[in-house]
Every structure is written in structure tokens, then in C-alpha cells.
């Protein structure tokens, strides 16, 4: 698609032919280092896939105990807490991937939803807040509901317009939430909220399980949440909604013409992404135990975007991995921790130029399916048909 697609095209046939070649070459390029892995994965029977997944999940749950040399953090960073922050970033990645990866909308203020979730958890559980107290676990669904509301509030005016507007409006929103947290006294500004609540439960000694200093139970909780969100996101991806999102991402005008209510589905994507952001914010607030206005800056938003893009926009496993990497690199290599923003900024530019599909490319199964469907249609011109059918087959494989 040319950037300026308004005017008439020069030689429409040549143009479309060139575009077709380019689409094919992109499709070929989307095959990354994981392509063979994915092919073999897809060939496995369903039971074997589940068995492997169980092993992966078991390893993931054991991660806080895999505290040895090549993996562990450098001195000064607690490994279980690093695991927790990786999990939170991974959850953020999965949520933001719904917005950026599936629906193709750029949200540069995702940290605002994260902040709204954190503040929800803090203000309904912290003794510093004037609000009524509710148990911590109840703040998780509440945080989802409130952030989804904000998502709709922000999405409705902007999603009717081109995607660029959404990007800058969300960028502004991220900053506004921080400013509001500073000026509204009920939100305690820099003083913030101490002693944010935590889930119930005590160990053998009668001490609470979920404490600020121990990242492991929080990591397990977050991991469980991630698995639930991944299952839900996977179902969404394969549903009518998911297909609508992919259609919008690939060509919004075409989707609209084919009868996809694009605005509705964009608002849905945005609201759902926001909801997951709020959920991760609430978890983060619980572990850290303290929320103030200093933690939610634009930089963090861009790190979130970098996580999704690095991992592979449109692929939930990629987004998960990207989130974990973005959180892991600064604690593993503390020497470069000061440069992390510079590094991830440069990485974003380089990725877009050289490998826009990220580490784990989006599944092109849907698109490939459409391409295969092309030659089920009976050819209209018998002469040129075999050639074109061969071409499609060749490129789809």
C-alpha cells in the first residue's frame, strides 16, 4: 500500500503486480528463525502439543528457583522480584498486543491504563485512601472494568479517525493521567499510597504469603493470570472478533467494505487491551505495595510498545517473550541498564527497517488460508489458470 493512496494509480496493472510481488516477498520474509519450529509444532498431534505446553508451564512456574549463573540477575537485583516484573511486562505485552498486534492501532499511552489499574488497586485497599476498603483480589476485576471504561472514553472520539490520531491522543493521555495524579489531592501526588493490599493466605508460621519482599508468590499469581489471559486471547484470536481485527489491521477500508463494523471492533480491541493493562497495573501495585505519581511516565509506555514490537506484533507468544526480554535485559546486564531507553529506541527504528515482524512473527495462517482459497475458485480463463495456480501454490508453501 502506497502512503498516498488517494490519487489515481499510474498503470494500475503494473502497480498491483508489483504490490502482489511485494506482499509475497513480505510473506516469505515473515518466516524467521522460528519457522521450522513452528512447522514442526503445527504437525504435532493435539495431545503432544498440550503435553509440551504443560512442560513449558511447569518450567515457567519453577523459574524463581532457577536462580543460577547464566540466567540469574546481577547483584543488586532480587531474582524472584525480577521474575515478577518480567511476568508483569509479559502480561502488559499480551494486552498491548491486542491493540497493536491484532487491530493494528498504536497506543502510546498504555502506561496510563497501567496507572489507572494501579491506582484502583491502591485506592481501594490502602489505608491512606479515603475510599471504602475492599479485599485486594476484588480490585483486579474492578481495575479491569475501570480501565475498560477509560479505554472506551478515549477510543470513541479518536477511533473514527485515522490511526495516527489515536497514537498522539494516547500519548497525551499518558501524560494527563500523571498530571491529574499530581494535582488531584485525593490521589496523593508524590506522597502516594502505602501498604497496598495483597491476597489473603498465611504460611505455616502464620505470616502472610504475599509480602512485598518476596516476589515468588506474586510471580505465580501473575503467571496464572497470564495463562488465563492467553487462553482467552487465543479464543478471541480465532473467533469472529479476531478475524475482524486482522482484517482491520491488514486493510481497514477493505474490511469496512466487506461489512466488518470496523469502528465497533476497534473500540473493542482498545477497551480489551486497556483492561489487561489495568489488570497488570493492579498486580504491579500489589507487589510493590506503594503507588505514587512517579512511576507512570511516557518512557514506560514506549518500553511497552518496544516489548510488543520486539517480540512480534500480532503474535501473543512473541508479545509475551518481548515483554519478558524488555524487563529482563536491564536487570541481567546492569552495565547497560542506564542506556536501556536509548537501546530500545534504536531497536525500534532498526526493527522497523530490517525486521518489522519482530522475533516471533505473527501467524499468517489466516492470510495463507485466503491465498489457498484462491485456487479453489474455478478459473475463469482456462489458458492462464494453471500458471497462476502454480504461482499461488509455490508462494504459499
Amino acid at each position, binding site marked *: 500500500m502506497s502512503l498516498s493512496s488517494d490519487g489515481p494509480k499510474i498503470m494500475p496493472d503494473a502497480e498491483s503486480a508489483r504490490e502482489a510481488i511485494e506482499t509475497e516477498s513480505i510473506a516469505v520474509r515473515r518466516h524467521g528463525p522460528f519457522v521450522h519450529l513452528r512447522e514442526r509444532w503445527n504437525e504435532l498431534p493435539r495431545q503432544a502439543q498440550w503435553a509440551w505446553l504443560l512442560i513449558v508451564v511447569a518450567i515457567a512456574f519453577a523459574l524463581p528457583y532457577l536462580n543460577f549463573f547464566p540466567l540469574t540477575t546481577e547483584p543488586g537485583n532480587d531474582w524472584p522480584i525480577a521474575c515478577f516484573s518480567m511476568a508483569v511486562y509479559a502480561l502488559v505485552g499480551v494486552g498491548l498486543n491486542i491493540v497493536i498486534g491484532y487491530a493494528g492501532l498504536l497506543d502510546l499511552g498504555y502506561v496510563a491504563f497501567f496507572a489507572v489499574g494501579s491506582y484502583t488497586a491502591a485506592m481501594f485497599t490502602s489505608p491512606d485512601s479515603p475510599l471504602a476498603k475492599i479485599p485486594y483480589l476484588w480490585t483486579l476485576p474492578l481495575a479491569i472494568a475501570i480501565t475498560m471504561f477509560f479505554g472506551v472514553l478515549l477510543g470513541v472520539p479518536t477511533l473514527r479517525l485515522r490511526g495516527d490520531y489515536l497514537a498522539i491522543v494516547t500519548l497525551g493521555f499518558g501524560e494527563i493521567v500523571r498530571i491529574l495524579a499530581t*494535582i488531584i489531592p485525593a490521589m496523593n501526588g508524590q506522597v502516594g499510597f502505602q501498604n497496598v493490599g495483597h491476597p489473603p493466605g498465611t504460611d505455616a508460621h502464620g505470616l502472610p504469603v504475599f509480602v512485598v519482599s518476596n516476589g515468588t508468590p506474586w510471580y505465580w499469581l501473575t503467571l496464572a493470570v497470564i495463562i488465563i489471559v492467553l487462553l482467552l486471547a487465543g479464543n478471541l484470536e480465532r473467533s469472529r472478533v479476531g478475524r475482524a481485527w486482522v482484517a482491520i489491521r491488514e486493510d481497514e477500508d477493505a474490511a469496512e467494505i466487506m461489512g466488518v463494523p470496523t469502528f465497533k471492533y476497534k473500540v473493542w480491541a482498545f477497551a480489551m487491551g486497556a483492561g489487561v493493562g489495568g489488570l497488570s497495573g493492579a498486580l504491579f501495585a500489589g507487589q510493590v505495595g506503594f503507588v505514587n505519581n512517579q512511576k507512570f511516565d511516557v518512557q514506560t509506555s514506549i518500553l511497552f510498545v518496544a516489548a510488543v514490537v520486539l517480540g512480534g506484533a500480532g503474535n501473543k507468544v512473541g508479545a509475551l517473550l518481548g515483554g519478558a526480554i524488555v524487563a529482563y535485559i536491564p536487570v541481567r546486564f546492569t552495565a547497560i541498564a542506564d542506556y536501556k531507553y536509548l537501546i530500545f529506541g534504536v531497536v525500534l527504528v532498526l526493527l522497523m527497517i530490517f525486521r518489522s515482524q519482530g522475533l516471533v512473527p505473527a501467524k499468517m495462517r489466516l492470510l495463507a488460508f485466503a491465498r489457498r482459497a484462491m485456487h479453489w475458485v474455478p478459473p475463469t480463463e482456462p489458458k492462464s489458470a494453471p500458471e497462476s495456480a502454480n504461482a499461488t501454490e509455490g508462494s504459499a508453501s
Partner: protein
Amino acid sequence: MLELVLAAAPIGVAPTDNSWINFDFTALFQNFWSATFDGVTFGAVYGLIAVGYTLVYGVLSLINFAHSEVFIVGAYGVVVTLLTLGFGPNAPTLSPVAIIGDLLLAMIVGMIASALTALLLERIAYRPLRRRNAPRLAFLITAIGASFAIQYTIFLIQGPLGGPSGANAMPSVTMFQQHPVFDVFGTIIYDVQLIIVIAAIVLMIATDLFIRRGRTGRGIRAVAQDPDTATLMGVNRERIIVITFVVGGILAGAAALFYIMLVPSGVIYNGGFILGVKAFAAAVLGGIGNVRGALLGGLLLGVISNYGQILLGDAQWADVVAFVVLVLVLLIRPEGILGQTLGRSRA
């Protein structure tokens, strides 16, 4: 459980004390004219930055997110030049001619710094994507990545360049002693305000003439209108795009000088973001893609956010008000006040 949540909701809405937001109309009426003139002055700066957004949008249909960093680099150029020339927190004791010469030099350095940044940005970040016909999302992500990279490059090199280390703002630079010139409606107008507004208007008229009259300007309008046909008619599209970025950069460099004139200690590596959002809001308010709209939008936005700040009682409300204006414009009239785009504007 749900009842508990519902019962908590009204308490959440009502603030604990009422001082954080007030609709202080008496304050607004008392300071109406000074707020207006201050707003116009800031608005002129927003307008100059907004032209950068508007021009690039007109030609490429792309929001250049990194334009705020183009501005910040210019601001560093200005501050570093002035510090080298011996300016400091106190007004200099030089002859007016020397001050004007120094300021002009600083402005030129700022313009060159900004224009070079814009040029490099176009070459390194955008051109490879354009070659490849990348999707729009790729441009946005590149822009934000580049913006981030520039910000943190400044952050890392500002110490060695004689600036502060770490996340501190550059030292304050006062350019000259402000003098009252005359009063209007009982409000004193300072020479700074006059200089900024007049200079901004002159620069905007020059830009407008450049786009409407000159050969290059015709090229810009042609590419904005229809890139393919323009190319067939012999317009060098790549050259036009580069010129567009450079013109936006030059104006951002000028805006940097005026901004520092207003806020002497306001230069910080990440200070561009919110200013960029404001300038973008100005561009949208006036009609994005429209050069005259950028100035109009900038002035209006400056005035509105200043009123909002006085009415609501805290300086930080200015940013919130500007943001709300942006969302309202997008909701009610997304094409902006003047509404016409660069391509459709008549010669």
C-alpha cells in the same frame, strides 16, 4: 461485595478538599487581558512548532512524532550557543546591538541544529520505510523509536557538552531585561511578547509565501495533492520531502529561541513530549495540513489553555486543557477550523 463497591463510588468522585479544582471566574475576569496576551505569546511558539507537523502531514500524510525532538535539539543548540557567548541566569550587560547579534547567532545555530535533526531523521528513519512501502504503523513506531533515541542521546551527551549531568535541566539563560512597552486595557505589554508574536507572524507569512508563491512551494503543494501525478510532471518527490522536513526543522529552531526567551530554564532532554502534543493539538485545531491554520490553532490553543489554567487554578491544568481541546476538536470537527489541506490550498 458489589454493594460495597457501589457504595464506595460516590466517595471516590467527591474530592477530600475542594481546592484542587475551582471555577474561579473572578480571577479569570481580573486577569483576562494579561492571560490573553500571555496566551498569544505562548500560542505563537506552539504555532511555529505546529507548522512542522502540518507540513509533513500535508506531504506524507504522516504524523512526525519525532518533531518534538527536532524542537528540543534546536533548543539545546540555542542554549549551548548562548552559554558559550557568556549568557547566564542574569540579564547580560551588553549593548542592545551585541545582544541582538548574539540572539540572531543563537537562533541560526538552533535552526541549523533542528533542520539537521529533521534531515537525518528523514534519511535514516523514514526513507528506508518509504522505499519499502511499509505499512503506516511502521512509520509511527519508527518515529517514536527515533524520538526516544534522540532524547536519550541528549540525556547521555549533555554532561560532556558542558550541561548538567543526569536528568537535570540545562542552566537558565536570560536573554535580556524585559521592558514594558505600552499598556492595553490596563495590562502592560512587554517587549518580549511583542518580539515573539511579531517574529512568529513574520516567519509564518514567509513560510506561507514560500509555499504559495515559489517554485519549490508549488512542488510541495503538488506532492501533497497527488504524489504520482506530481512525479510525472517532473517534481522530484524525494527532494520535496527533504525540503519539507528541513522547513519544519528551521521553524522549530526559531520556536526554540522564543520558547527559551519565555521560559529561560525550560530546556530539558525530555521536555519535548508534552510541548509536541500541544503543538500537534494546535495543528489539528487549525486544520492539519494547513500552514495558516497552524498559526491560528497555536494562538487559540495558547489562549484557551491559559484561560483554563487561571480558571482551574493550577499551572499544570494548561496541559490538561490543551489535551481536552485536542480530543474535543477530533470529536466535533476533525478537519479543524480552517479545514483545508495543503494539497487543496489555492496558489
